[in-house]
C-alpha cells in the first residue's frame, strides 16, 4: 500500500525538478545572450576608445608644443641676451668714437697727402 502511494509522488517530484532544471537552463541561456550583447557593444566601442585615447594624447602634446614655442618667443633669457649684445655694441661704438677722435687729424692728413703729395 505504501509503495503504491509513493510512486505518483516521486514522479511528480521528478517532473517538478526537470521543469525547474529547464527554467534554470533558460536563465543561463539568457545570461549568456546578454553577455554576448555586452561584449559585442564593447567591440563596437573599441575603435572609438582607441581614437579618443589617441586624440587626447596627441592634443596634450600639441598643447605642450604650443607652450614650448610661446615660451621661446617670450624667453626672458633671450631678452637679456639681446640687451647684453646691444649694450656691448654701444660700448664698442663709444670706444670707436673715442679712438676716432684721437686719430682724426692723422687720418685727415694721410688722406690729404694722397691728394696733395
Amino acid at each position, binding site marked *: 500500500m505504501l509503495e503504491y502511494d509513493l510512486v505518483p509522488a516521486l514522479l511528480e517530484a521528478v517532473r517538478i*525538478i526537470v521543469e525547474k532544471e529547464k527554467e534554470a537552463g533558460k536563465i543561463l541561456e539568457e545570461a549568456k545572450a546578454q553577455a554576448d550583447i555586452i561584449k559585442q557593444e564593447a567591440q563596437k566601442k573599441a575603435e572609438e576608445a582607441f581614437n579618443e585615447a589617441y586624440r587626447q594624447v596627441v592634443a596634450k602634446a600639441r598643447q605642450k608644443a604650443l607652450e*614650448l*614655442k610661446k615660451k621661446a618667443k617670450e624667453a626672458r633669457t633671450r631678452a637679456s641676451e639681446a640687451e647684453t*649684445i646691444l649694450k656691448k655694441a654701444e660700448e664698442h661704438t663709444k670706444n670707436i668714437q673715442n679712438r676716432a677722435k684721437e686719430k682724426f687729424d692723422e*687720418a685727415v692728413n694721410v688722406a690729404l697727402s694722397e691728394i696733395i703729395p
Partner: protein
Amino acid sequence: MESQVHRIVDKIISDAKEKAKSIIEEAHKSSEVMLEQQRELARQKASEEVSLILKKAEEEAKVTTITEVAEVNRKASWMILREKERLINNVLDEVRTRLNAFSKSKKYVLFLQRLIVDSGTVLGGGMLEVLLNEKDFTLRLNFDELEKTITERTGVKTQLRLSEEKINAPEGTVIRRVDGRILVDNTFEAILKRREKHLRLKIAKILFE
C-alpha cells in the same frame, strides 16, 4: 517529501540566477579590460607622433631663439658699421674743408700747375684746353713753362689754351683736347671720388685698427 522537492527546486533556480549574474559581471569586466587595452594601445601608438610633435616644437623654439639673437647681432653690427661710416665721412668732409682752404693758399698755384702738367702728360700733349673755375681763372699761371714741361715729357709739341668755359668745381682743373674728345678731370672732387674707395680703407685702418 514535498518540502524536500521545494528545497531542491529553489537551489536549482538560485544557483542558476547566481551563475547568470556572474556571467554578466564577467562580460562587463572583460569588456572594460578590452577597452582599456585599446586605450593603452592608442597611447603607445600616439607616443610616436607625440615625440615628433615635441621634437619639432623644440627645434622651432630653438630656431626662434637663434634667429632672434642673430637678428640682434645683425642690428648691433649695423649700428657699429653705421658709426664707422659716419666717422669716415667726417674725415672726408674735413679733407674737403682743408682742400678748400688749401685752394686759397699760395702753394695752390704751384699745385694747380702740377695738375695741369700731369693731366696734359696723360693726354699725350698737343693742343689742349685748360678749364678752371671762376676764382682760379684770374690766377697767373705760367703756361709757357707748363707747355714746355709737357712737351718734354710727352715728346709732342704742346700748346695750352685757357678755356672761356668755367668749371663748377671749387678747386682743381679739367684739361681736354681741343677737339673735346678726351679730357682729364683733376678737380679735387673728382680726384677724391676716384680715390674714395682706397681712401676709405686707409682712413678706416687709421681710425679703427
